[in-house]
């Protein structure tokens, strides 16, 4: 049963509603698929940062980050993506971002991320982006 959202701190903040950031990894033949679900803000990076960095690099193959359920990304989250892309590039592999929302993509492009890793919106575009 979902608890009612009535718990208020003295200064009025409701601390119950936020779902924690989730990460799901699948090892494919040619790449590692990492799906992020939630807000990649300071709290989200604390929750999944270590797991993300590990999962992206442990397979020693390219990585595709499914951003379709990523509702928000801040600079700390972008830093996480850049660090992972740098680690992969040292072994000659790419990191590809798949299906970010328009708002998330606008943030990524404002940070120049599209110069560092491909952003694609179609599964069929992934193989070419990984090359």
């Amino acid at each position, binding site marked *: 049963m979902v608890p009612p959202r009535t718990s208020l701190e003295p200064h009025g903040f409701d601390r119950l509603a936020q779902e924690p950031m989730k990460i799901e990894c699948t090892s494919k033949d040619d790449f590692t698929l990492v799906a992020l679900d939630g807000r990649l803000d300071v709290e989200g990076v604390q929750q999944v940062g270590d797991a993300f960095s590990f999962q992206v690099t442990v397979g020693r193959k390219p990585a595709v980050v499914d951003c379709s359920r990523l509702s928000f990304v*801040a600079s700390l989250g972008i830093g996480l993506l850049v660090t992972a892309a740098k680690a992969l590039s040292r072994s000659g592999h790419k990191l590809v971002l798949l299906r970010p929302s*328009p708002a998330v993509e606008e943030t990524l492009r404002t940070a120049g991320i599209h110069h560092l890793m491909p952003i694609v919106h179609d599964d069929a575009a992934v193989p070419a982006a990984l090359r």
Partner: protein
Amino acid sequence: MPRMPQRLELTLHGFADLEPASRRVREFLREGGIDDRRSYHADLAIEEIVVNVLRHGARGGPKGPIGLTVELDAADGVLLTFADDEHEFDPWSLPAPDVNAPLDERKVGGLGVHLVRTLARRVAYERKGGRNETRVWI
């Protein structure tokens, strides 16, 4: 019909207040009829400015609360005002990062202020009565 100006005032005492505060602001903006894109930009500005103050503001001195005021104007604009009593620091004086640098030369960090400055309509900073007052118009 133009909307009447509205105002929300919050006080953040640390990182634990950031997510619930940004959620409260998102609700306030939704109720105020602000579109999703502008609300996202406000959310981003709150995250970046507050994290900046909490991570870099206090250098051995007392860490006071951060005041956040959100105001809606009649033209669907959003004004965010952040006030803190840390040492004098103008975030808009920071140099812009090179967002065109290749991966091996790309620095991790320094992006937050750039994102806010680029996506906002206008930004400003003032040292007022011993406090930093940072403004972002979305």
